[in-house]
């Protein structure tokens, strides 16, 4: 040991000037290295070489040096015993140190209380820190190198001393400490008493404990389907079938709401189930409500004056004005009044909520086909028939559409050529003509004229020679008992008995099924072409008679003030009725005795209504100098209602003595309309 000490000293002596002294910051590790170097050197008794190199050798070649180490360990074990004895000998200080090293460092506060701060902060100071009581700990006076060297030479334990920079003192490691360090360096447990390979102690009993699983047979219920599960499944199935359980439930999205939006119809309000009325949102103020708006917002004096002419509601509520500054803005003059109004509103506000239906008026309009699809219909006047000198009361178009007859209040009956507007013949009846009607048979061009109390049958002479002869005979036979009319050259045939007149006519023209007569009086009669039905229009109602059975079939209630005209659809099931109050009623005979539609069209009396024979058209003419043309489609399907579309207003006639258009008739084959006016002109409206 002594030998090794001396060799160690020599090493220390060489080393200290190199490492310890110039570098006081060196941690204790470097000192430990020195120790290991020393201990290695003891084992190998080789002092030479670099210290770091030897330490590496020590780490790397541990296995090689096993045998000498073991031997030394053994000796050291003995030494440790010695060491304890030595400790006891050394005295109290070292004993305390050992105890301290065993216990945790926190228990004994370090002398210096500066904490873990860089020590160089105190480099310039005279003290190294403060003790617990706050007093400065003075730095020891520095030994110069010679002194320290000399002290090292004198002190044999110098190599064990480490300078503790923190506390500014030298600490001398005890033998135990060096031993501990040495063991740690070798990777062993710090204390030699720990046995890492202690024998295994079997603390728990395990023998004679038997098999952990039961050998009993499986119970029956393990093999029988579970009733409880069956019930549960059935319940689930039922729930799924009934829709109580739903799969693929849509994930509820997080609900956001429009912070600044209108909350009048928010779902929140609906959920409350209350008739929640949100407060009206006032319009946000714009630039014009600024106290100093731009010039373009300021109305001129004329504009302000013009506001006075507006209705109260239309007037702008706020008139922008300019003020120099906020200070100059006057008090709000309407403040009191508006408060009062508000109070009134609250006081008089109805507590019951008024239900108001918001319906777009456009949607209430029936869906009608466009006029373009309903062509042709009369729209433009190209031809006029001039010649009469008085209002034309009645016109009638021959069945072929070649000729047209008209009767006027000037006492004349004229026959016109439709194509050219030429007047072919004129008869002077001498009395205002009320009505004219062509015989609907094309081979019998007979014209029936009613004038005053007379009904005249005229031979127009438009047929060929044979026809003319036949007509002559016909008329002669009829008239022979009463007058000497030769039929061709006509004068008024005056009949004394009107009832007789009707009777004769009906008898005589039974073959001619559809002649239409007008008599002065309250009655119009029309014979329907398809069926033997007879219409009588009284002042307010229309009676429909069956001619074969001679009895009343139906009574149509018009609810009009006074019927002026009647026309029957060529199909026979629909009737239009014009009234003197400008209303027109469409009756669907199969439907009811009430009007299917009532059209309020004309501002004045309707003078006549007419159906077209083949085109789905009907027309009405009135004293307001207009004629209206409608599309009136009657479907063969009984379930479908007739389609009525107003098409055109035909203007052109001028008013004369308060009368306008007195008669209108359709051309039998073309979609043309003839209108006879009180201005003694007949107009032809073509498509």
């Amino acid at each position: 040991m002594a030998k090794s000490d001396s060799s160690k000293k020599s090493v220390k002596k060489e080393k200290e000037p190199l490492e310890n002294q110039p570098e006081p910051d060196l941690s204790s590790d470097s000192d430990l290295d020195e120790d290991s170097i020393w201990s290695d050197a003891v084992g190998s008794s080789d002092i030479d070489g670099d210290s770091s190199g030897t330490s590496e050798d020590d780490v790397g070649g541990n296995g090689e040096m096993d045998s000498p180490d073991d031997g030394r360990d053994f000796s050291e074990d003995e030494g440790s015993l010695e060491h304890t004895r030595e400790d006891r000998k050394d005295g109290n200080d070292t004993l305390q140190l050992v105890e301290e090293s065993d216990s945790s460092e926190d228990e004994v506060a370090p002398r210096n209380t500066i904490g873990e701060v860089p020590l160089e902060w105190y480099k310039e100071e005279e003290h190294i820190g403060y003790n617990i009581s706050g007093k400065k700990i003075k730095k020891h006076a520095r030994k110069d190198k010679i002194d320290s060297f000399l002290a090292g030479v004198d002190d044999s334990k110098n190599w064990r001393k480490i300078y503790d920079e923190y506390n500014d003192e030298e600490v001398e490691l005890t033998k135990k400490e060096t031993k501990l360090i040495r063991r740690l360096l070798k990777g062993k447990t710090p204390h030699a008493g720990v046995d890492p390979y202690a024998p295994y102690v079997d603390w728990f009993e395990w023998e004679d404990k038997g098999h952990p699983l039961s050998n009993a047979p499986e119970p029956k219920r393990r093999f029988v389907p579970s009733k409880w599960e069956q019930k549960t499944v059935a319940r689930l199935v039922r729930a799924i079938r009934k829709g109580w359980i739903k799969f693929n439930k849509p994930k509820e999205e997080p609900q956001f709401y429009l912070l600044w939006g209108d909350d009048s119809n928010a779902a929140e309000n609906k959920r409350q189930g209350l008739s929640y009325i949100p407060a009206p949102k006032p319009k946000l103020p714009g630039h014009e409500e600024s106290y100093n708006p731009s010039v373009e917002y300021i109305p001129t004096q004329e504009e302000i004056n013009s506001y006075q002419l507006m209705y109260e509601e239309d007037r702008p509520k706020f008139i922008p004005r300019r003020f120099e500054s906020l200070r100059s803005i006057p008090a709000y003059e309407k403040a009191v009044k508006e408060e009062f109004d508000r109070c009134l509103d609250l006081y008089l506000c109805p507590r019951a909520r008024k239900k108001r239906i918001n319906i777009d008026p456009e949607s209430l309009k029936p869906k009608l086909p466009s006029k373009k699809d309903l062509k042709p219909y009369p729209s433009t006047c190209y031809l006029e028939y001039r010649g009469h000198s008085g209002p034309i009361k009645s016109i009638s178009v021959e069945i072929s559409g070649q000729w047209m007859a008209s009767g006027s209040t000037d006492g004349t009956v004229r026959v016109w050529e439709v194509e050219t507007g030429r007047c072919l013949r004129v008869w002077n009846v001498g009395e205002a003509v009320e009505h004219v009607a062509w015989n609907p048979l094309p081979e019998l061009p007979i014209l029936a004229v009613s004038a005053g109390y007379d009904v005249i049958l005229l031979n127009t002479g438009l047929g060929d020679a044979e026809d003319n002869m036949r007509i002559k005979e016909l008329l002669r036979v009829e008239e022979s008992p009463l007058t000497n009319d030769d039929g061709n050259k006509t004068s008024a045939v005056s009949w004394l008995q009107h009832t007789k007149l009707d009777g004769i006519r009906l008898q005589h023209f039974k073959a001619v099924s559809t002649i239409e007569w007008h008599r002065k009086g309250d009655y119009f009669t029309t014979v329907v072409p398809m069926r033997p039905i007879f219409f009588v229009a009284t002042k307010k109602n229309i009676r429909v008679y069956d001619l074969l059975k001679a009895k009343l079939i139906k009574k149509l209630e018009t609810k009009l003030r006074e019927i002026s005209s009647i026309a029957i659809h060529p199909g026979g099931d629909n009737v239009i009725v014009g009234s003197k109050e400008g209303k027109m009623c469409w009756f669907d005979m199969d439907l009811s005795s009430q009007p299917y539609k009532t059209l309020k069209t004309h501002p004045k009396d309707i003078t006549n209504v007419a159906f077209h024979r083949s085109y789905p058209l009907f027309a009405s003419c009135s004293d307001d100098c207009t004629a209206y043309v409608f599309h009136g489609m009657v479907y063969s399907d009984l379930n479908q209602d007739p389609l009525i579309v107003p098409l055109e207003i035909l203007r052109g006639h001028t008013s004369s003595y308060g009368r306008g258009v007195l008669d209108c008739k359709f051309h039998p084959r073309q979609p043309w309309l003839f209108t006879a006016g009180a201005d003694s002109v007949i107009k032809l409206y073509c498509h």
Partner: protein
Amino acid sequence: MEMSLIATKAGDTGLGFRDCDAKNLPLFIFSSSEMDTNGSDSSRQIQVRFVTKLEPPLKAPASSIAVPSYLNRMGLSEIVNSLLKSVSSEFEPQPFDFLVDGELVRMSLEQFLLAKGISAERVLEIEYIKVVAPREQKDPCLHDDWVSAVDGSDPRFILTGCYDNISRIWKAGSLCTHILEGHTGAVTSVSILNTTGVENGNIRLATGSKDRTLRLWMLDVAGKVDYPMKIGAYKVLNGHMASVQSISSAPLGDKICSGSWDCSVKLWKVNDSEVEGDSVSIKKRKLVSDMVEESQAEIEAMSSFVGHTQCVSSVTWPELETIYSASWDHSIRSWDVETGKSPWNMVSGKVFNCLDVGGRELIAAGGSDPILRIWDPRKPGTLAPIFQFSSHASWITACKWHSSSQFHLVSSSYDGKVMLWDLRTAWPLAVIDSHKDKVLCVDWWKGDSVVSGGADSKLCISSGISIQ
């Protein structure tokens, strides 16, 4: 005797002779060197070259000149006149019409080029033709009643039908030489059977009337007569059940077809003398009455074409084998003469009053609306009219193609106007406004005149129409 030439709707009237004063003319001519100096002028210049098919006195030098683009027809006309003046000093100025790419110029040159998308950079070739417009309005021939029919297919005379049941022959446009009496209804249609009898001076005529008959007349037009000679019909064609509305003679003149209110088109043979005698005797035996004169022979219709459902208002027989008929049932049909079948049927929306086939075998028809429409029957698939002329204000009563020109036609209307049309422009070439009332019939006469009769009982003759 007023005559106004309304050249365009835009009021480009008075393309007159007095405006073409020789002193004013050079203003419009700019040589190319002058054009540079006038470059700052606001109007653009267009290089044009005038070409023509006219004969030398009217042939302008074929050099290109620059003209301002705002020039319209009148300005161009003045330029051409001054060019012609520079060629021969004794040239009489006259108006011209101008064609660019087969279209008549009816607006300013600039607008025209813009509308047609023609580049103004290259030299524009403008063809000029004589203006088609009547220059002279003769005294009207006065009738006793409405003039309902006119035929001017013979250059020697005009045949008119009248509502007083009489047809008349007017020679030289003013003198009534023959009066054809016999109808008991208004004459609706007249036709000259122009082939037979020319060699001996005898002319055959046919008239249709509202008394349901057609009558054939034979007369000698060559003979000089001072007073109106009354002539009776030599044949009466009975068979229609209603008024005869229109008649037309075959191209060879041996047959005649008629359309009537009884919805049929009937075909009559007119020059078969053997059948004639037999039918006379039969008819006489049948008809005991003395209404038919002894000298008249009656013949039956050769065949009857049924298919129309309403009045056949107009028939025309342009080719040997084909008859076209227009009807109030809104359709135009063509009939094969031999088979009586209708190979072509065109339905329109309006009633037809008149029909003529001409030009390049185009069908012109007018009816109960103011639009004169022209169809091409050879165009497959479509029934849309290829031209529509809509300057009239009322029903169109008659339309006639020019016999030689394939572009020109004339139409008359209830608005009292007769209009001359050219297929190359949508505006009427000229509007003859001489009638006071409805115009009922119109025809060309001698190739350069338009004769028209109307409800004012006048037959108006507008002559001096130069169609080359």
